[in-house]
């Protein structure tokens, strides 16, 4: 069974589309990791309802901070993780449900380049064996053809033929990454997931690899999904970018437009946080408060609502000043952190008999946040009541109370994707709805906009 597959016949009909047509269509994709707990653990919602299209021949970037689910998304697309729900369409096939020969065809056509050049190559195998392995698995050609192909690939990624019989130990990080790329390209895939391929490399080596990836794309007509946390790299190499936060795609659109005029508050915050290698650049930095919530327990409304600097306020609270609102948000954040903290046995015992524990400092928190402030009754009452609840150790009830009294649409409803910009860009934020002000109108200016 070692017939060579005909060129162009990829096995899955949807893969043979023309450049620019939709190659992959991801719809409401969800990937959850089960918690190790036997009883009542919450799953980690790594990817939580993601939809986008990948066009043949383009480079689509996925950026976000660690834990946002970007790597899981990439791994789900190449079937390294099982999707919990949703679909990934290639033509009429759903990648998440492929099996048998179809799955094999997908595995041949979707490859990965991994992040860590130290760990992605088996260092007990020669370079030749490593690059050849995919060919062997898929019975590609005759053995002689396979070897010829490996030599060809080595040259293509900028290595020499005589590297065939060397071991990974004999190569530097950049060279190892080239080997990883050669392995991914061995089966002439249509689609390559690049999972942070340059983040472990020094900047001068990183440039070499980025150039190589772009050359290969031009030469072979590859489609890339480029996962990265480095925005400058993404801006350089990608045609379109998806910005992920807590398992959601917050904004997706053409690179230049997205970088020049970010629409989503998170994108704006992310861009403004990137230090520019230009000491004269004066940016109006928008520093985000706190850290992303746990993907095990994401907020109910908008994923970004706990940190959003331009969160919509509830109706009738216009007279409350900015810093008071900030204090309310910090208070909620503190309660959230407390409700997630486990109590040790001794603390529970102390609580039971009414002794002071480290949780009994709610009043200090409230004092610190709200004294010296002129707080309107509409805010003071809910805060006081929440503090009472928290003092009794029931942070969840306190949070519920605050949310009910002081929460807005951002806390209650998941935002829709709104079309923004001119070139089919979408952003997931309530502020794009007609009744609210646009994020750019309330926050500081970011990116190229003036």
């Amino acid at each position, binding site marked *: 069974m070692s017939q060579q597959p005909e060129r162009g016949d990829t096995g899955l009909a949807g893969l043979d589309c023309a450049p620019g047509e939709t190659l992959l269509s991801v719809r409401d994709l969800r990937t959850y990791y089960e918690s190790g707990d036997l009883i009542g653990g919450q799953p980690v919602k790594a990817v939580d309802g993601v939809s986008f299209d990948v066009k043949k021949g383009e480079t689509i970037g996925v950026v976000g901070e660690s834990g946002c689910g970007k790597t899981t998304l990439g791994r789900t697309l190449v079937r390294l993780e099982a999707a919990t729900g949703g679909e990934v369409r290639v033509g009429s096939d759903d990648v998440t449900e492929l099996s048998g020969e179809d799955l094999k065809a997908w595995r041949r056509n979707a490859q990965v380049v991994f992040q860590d050049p130290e760990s992605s190559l088996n260092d007990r195998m020669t370079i030749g064996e490593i690059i050849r392995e995919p060919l062997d698995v898929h019975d590609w050609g005759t053995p002689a053809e396979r070897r010829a192909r490996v030599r060809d690939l080595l040259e293509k990624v900028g290595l020499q033929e005589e590297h065939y019989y060397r071991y990974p130990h004999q190569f530097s990080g950049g060279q190892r990454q080239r080997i990883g790329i050669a392995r991914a390209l061995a089966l002439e895939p249509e689609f390559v997931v690049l999972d942070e391929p340059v983040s472990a490399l020094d900047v001068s080596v990183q440039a070499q690899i980025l150039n190589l990836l772009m050359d290969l794309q031009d030469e072979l007509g590859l489609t890339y999904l480029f996962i990265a946390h480095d925005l400058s790299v993404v801006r350089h190499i990608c045609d379109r970018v998806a910005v992920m936060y807590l398992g959601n795609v917050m904004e997706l659109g053409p690179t230049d437009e997205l970088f020049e005029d970010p629409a989503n508050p998170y994108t704006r915050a992310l861009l403004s946080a990137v230090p520019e290698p230009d000491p004269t650049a004066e940016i109006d930095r928008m520093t985000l408060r706190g850290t992303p919530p746990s993907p095990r327990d994401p907020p109910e409304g908008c994923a970004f609502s706990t940190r959003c600097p331009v969160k919509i306020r509830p109706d009738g609270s216009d007279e409350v000043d900015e810093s008071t609102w900030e204090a309310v948000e910090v208070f909620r954040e503190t309660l959230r952190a407390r409700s997630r*903290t486990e109590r040790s046995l001794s603390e529970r015992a102390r609580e039971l008999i009414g002794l002071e524990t480290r949780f009994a400092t709610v009043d200090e928190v409230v004092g610190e946040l709200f004294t010296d402030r002129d707080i309107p009754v509409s805010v003071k009452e809910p805060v006081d009541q929440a503090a009472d609840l928290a003092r009794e150790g029931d942070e969840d009830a306190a949070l519920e109370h605050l949310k009910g009294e002081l929460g807005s649409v951002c806390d209650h409803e998941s935002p829709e994707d709104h079309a923004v910009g001119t070139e089919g860009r979408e952003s997931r934020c309530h502020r794009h709805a007609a009744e609210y002000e646009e994020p750019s109108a309330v926050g500081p200016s970011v990116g190229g906009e003036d």
Partner: protein
Amino acid sequence: MSRWSYFARRVLLMIPIVFFGTTITFLVLRMGPMDPAAAVIAGAGDTEAYESVRQSLGLDQPLWLQYVEYLRDLFTLQLGYSWVVNRGRPVWELIGVYAPRTIWLGFWAVMLPLFIGLPLGFYAGLNPNTLSDYLASFGGIVWRAMPNFWLAVILVSVLTQSDQLFGFDWESWLVQTQIVTPPELQRLWVPSNFLAAFKAILPAALVLGSASMGNEMRIGRTAVLETVNENYVETARAKGVPRRTIISKHVFRNALIPLVPIITGEAFLLLGGSVLVETVFSINGLGYLFYSATINADLPLVGSLMFFFILLSVGINILQDLLYTLIDPRVGYGGEGA
């Protein structure tokens, strides 16, 4: 997952282990090639006696029923009676007589290595590649390689001859004790009784703990070496903490963490070794009881003792997890920081 739910989960996991461990024992005893009843009457040829033994052991019932009853009896802690070694005595009573000696022996066989081997290992780890380190490491390896029974034989001979060999009589030193007898364990709270009991068990405990001592010395050394290279030790240095504080505060507690399973694991290993040491020192403990029950074909007693050992092993495991939970705040912590 909180550390206590982690702990609860570990305890939960012990149930199938007791169950399977007991099942293995049942398989060996009842489904093995040896007929327990025949073994008990040991070829006396008396069919009547044979039948009565069969009946009282329930061997005339179908195998699955035997299994159910076997499990039921053990899980309700009805350990039955001895048939040969101490005919007619309840197993619990035998355990009550034999176990204290083994516990006394085992206790010191755990403690001595802990207080001798561990400090030596830590010392070697703090002074790596010095002469004392090499001596301690090499000594630990050789000490660990000595078979218990052989060491016991040599020690017994040396001690009985201590007068001729060193001009110092071990038996009458401090308090009068004998070397090859079980220790007297009455009224231990009286200092002289305690001393006598301690002195009587000391040679046996040293022998039984020899492997642990070598092991703990070696692993204590590597644990310290590993901890000394941790970043937080460097941080402590960077904030100006004196070396002595760094060692006593930052190194020791962290180095102890990997040692917990070693120490508890060895506590259980001692049970096996106790057979040999108890035999040489004539300490009528559990190991010796098991041994004589085995060679006298007292299979019901053997089965019950084995169940007791399984419970003991599970108990030690639980103790280990408890120690872990106390010593390492990270235990069971799966999530990310809040």
